[in-house]
C-alpha cells in the first residue's frame, strides 16, 4: 500500500485585529496555533482602528510566524505550502499578511494558497470534529457577517439568508458602547447579562416570524437604545437590558437556523465565527438542535475567534486540488461570492 505523505501547511491570518500564524498537518492536526491579539490596544478607541491594526500586524508578523514554527518544532523548509487570508476583512490589515506570505512563499519556493476568511471560520468545526454529516446548515456569525449557509458537501456553500443591515457582532459592539460596558461588545454583554434578568425590558424579535432566513439587527439595536433612554437607570438595569438584548439576539439566530436546517433536511447544524463563542448562543443552539433531532457542532472557544489554524486547515483541500495562488494575488475587503 502506498503511504500518503503528511502535508504541513503554514497559515497566516491578519484580516482584523489578530496577527496569527499556525501549522496544521493534513488539514486535521494542529501542530501550532499562535495568536497575537490587539484587543487591549483597540479597547482604548472603543473599536478596531484599521490603521493601528495594520501597524501592529507589520510589527508582529515575523515574530508570530517564528513562534508558530518553534511551537511545532519545525524548520521553514519542512512545510509544504503557505496559506493566507486574502478576503474578506480590512484591506490594509489583510495586505500585511498577504504581502508577507507572498515574499515568504517565494523565498522558500513553496506554493501559496489564498483562503477565504469565512471558509476558515466554518472549517474550524472540521478541525475538531470528524463525524459531521452532510447536508449541513451553518450559522456564521461575527462582527462583520451574519448568514445562514447550506452545505451539501464539504467546501460547498449556498447562502440561505443574511443580515440586511448590521452583523450580530456589530450590534453587540454598538449596544455595549452606549451602555458603557466596554469593548469588545460580545464578551461585555455576556458578562453583564449573566447578572441581569431578561424580560424586565422587552425587545422585539425582529424578522422572527418572516418565512425567509434574513436577519435585521439594526432595529433591535435601536429598540434597545430607545428603551434605555426612557428608563430611569435603576441599580441593575444595565444588566437587565444586556440580558434581554442577548436573549432576543440568541432567540432570533437559533430559531432561524434550526428552521433553515429543518427546511432543507440537514443532518448537522454548524456554528462559526466570533459570536459563536457566546455561551448563551451555544447553549440555545444545542438545546434547540437536539430537540429537533439534529446534531450541533461548534468550535472550541480558541478556534471561534480569529486564528490561523482555521486558515491552514481550510487550505488542505485546496492543496490537494493544486489550487494555488499566483504571485499577483490581491486582498479584498468583501467577497463577490462564497
Amino acid at each position, binding site marked *: 500500500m502506498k503511504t500518503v505523505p503528511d502535508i504541513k501547511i503554514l497559515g497566516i491570518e491578519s484580516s482584523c485585529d489578530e496577527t496569527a500564524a499556525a501549522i496544521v498537518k493534513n488539514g486535521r492536526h494542529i501542530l501550532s496555533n499562535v495568536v497575537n491579539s490587539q484587543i487591549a490596544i483597540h479597547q482604548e*478607541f472603543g473599536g478596531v482602528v484599521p490603521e493601528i491594526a*495594520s501597524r501592529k500586524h507589520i510589527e508582529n508578523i515575523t515574530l508570530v510566524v517564528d513562534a508558530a514554527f518553534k511551537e511545532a518544532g519545525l524548520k521553514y523548509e519542512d512545510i509544504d505550502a503557505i496559506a493566507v487570508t486574502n478576503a474578506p476583512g480590512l484591506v490594509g490589515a489583510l*495586505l500585511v499578511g*498577504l504581502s508577507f506570505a507572498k515574499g515568504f512563499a517565494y523565498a522558500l519556493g513553496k506554493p501559496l494558497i489564498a483562503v477565504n476568511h469565512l471558509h476558515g471560520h466554518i472549517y474550524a468545526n472540521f478541525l475538531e470534529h470528524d463525524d459531521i454529516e452532510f447536508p449541513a446548515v451553518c450559522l456564521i456569525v461575527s462582527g462583520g457577517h451574519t448568514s445562514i449557509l447550506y452545505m451539501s458537501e464539504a467546501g460547498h456553500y449556498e447562502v440561505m439568508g443574511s443580515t440586511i443591515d448590521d452583523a450580530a457582532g456589530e450590534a453587540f459592539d454598538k449596544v455595549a458602547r452606549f451602555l458603557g460596558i466596554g469593548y469588545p461588545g460580545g464578551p461585555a454583554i455576556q458578562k453583564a447579562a449573566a447578572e441581569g434578568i431578561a424580560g424586565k425590558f422587552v425587545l422585539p424579535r425582529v424578522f422572527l416570524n418572516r418565512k425567509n432566513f434574513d436577519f435585521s439587527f439594526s432595529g433591535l439595536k435601536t429598540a434597545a437604545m430607545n428603551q434605555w433612554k426612557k428608563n430611569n437607570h435603576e441599580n441593575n438595569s444595565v444588566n437587565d437590558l444586556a440580558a434581554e438584548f442577548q436573549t432576543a439576539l440568541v432567540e432570533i439566530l437559533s430559531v432561524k437556523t434550526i428552521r433553515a436546517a429543518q427546511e432543507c433536511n440537514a443532518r448537522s447544524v454548524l456554528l462559526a465565527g466570533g459570536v459563536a463563542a457566546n455561551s448563551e448562543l451555544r447553549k440555545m443552539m444545542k438545546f434547540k438542535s437536539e430537540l429537533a433531532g439534529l446534531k450541533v457542532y461548534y468550535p472550541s472557544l480558541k478556534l471561534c475567534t480569529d486564528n490561523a489554524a482555521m486558515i491552514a486547515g481550510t487550505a488542505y483541500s485546496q492543496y490537494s486540488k493544486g489550487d494555488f495562488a499566483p504571485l499577483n494575488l490581491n*486582498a479584498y475587503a468583501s467577497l463577490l461570492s462564497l
Partner: protein
Amino acid sequence: MLILAVDSTTPVAGVALVDEDKVIAEYFSNYKRVHSENLLPIIDRILTDCNCHLQDLTAIAVTTGPGSFTGIRIGMATVKGLSLGSDIPLISISTLDAIACNVVFSNYLACPVLNARKNEVYAALYDVRGAMPELLWGPAAGAPEVIADKALKVAADREGIIMLGDGYFPFRQCFQEKFGDKLAAAPSHLMLPRAASIGTLARQKIRQEKFEDVHSIRPYYIRLSEAEYKLGKEC
C-alpha cells in the same frame, strides 16, 4: 556585492538589482499603482531576467517611508517575507534620502516633498554637493508654506532650490511664489524615487554594516494614525 532594492512607498513601484559599482537592472512604474499585485511579480522578473537567485544577494534594501502608510507596509511585509525565508539581511532607506540621491553633485539645495494629504507634505532638506546626500533638516510633515520658508532660510547662500517628489505637483504654485527665481523642479526622470538610487544608498550602508533585524525593522511613518491624534497622543 549584490543588492535588491525595493520601493512601494509612493505611487511608484520600483525594483532594482545593483552590484558594487553598477546598476544591473531597474524597473520603474508610475502607471497602475496596484503595488499589492505588482511588487512581487516585478521582483521575480528582475531576478529571473538577471539569472539571479535570492541566495546570491548580499542584502535586500527597502524604503521604510515616509509615504503612503499602506504602500510602506506592502514593501516592508514583502521584504520581511523574502528575508525571513532566505536569511538575506535587510537594509532600510528613507524615501526622502532616496529621492535626494537622484540629484547629487549639485550646488542647489535639494528639497524632496511627498504627498502627505491633509494639505501637507513630508519633507527634508539635503546638501547634495557631494556624492551622497547629506541631511540638513527634517524629515517632518508640514504645510508647504512652512517647508518653503524653512528651505529659504537654509538655502540663503545657495543659487537655487531643487524640488523633487510627488508632493511638488499639487503645491507647485506655492513653491513658485515662495522661491521665485530660486526654484528648480527636477526633470521628470529624477523627480520620483528610483530603486537604483536606493541601491546606491544601500551600498554605503552595507559597507558600514548597518543591517536591520528582520523582526525589528519598522516603517517610518512620521505621523501617528488619525485615531491617535484624536485621542491627543501627539505629546
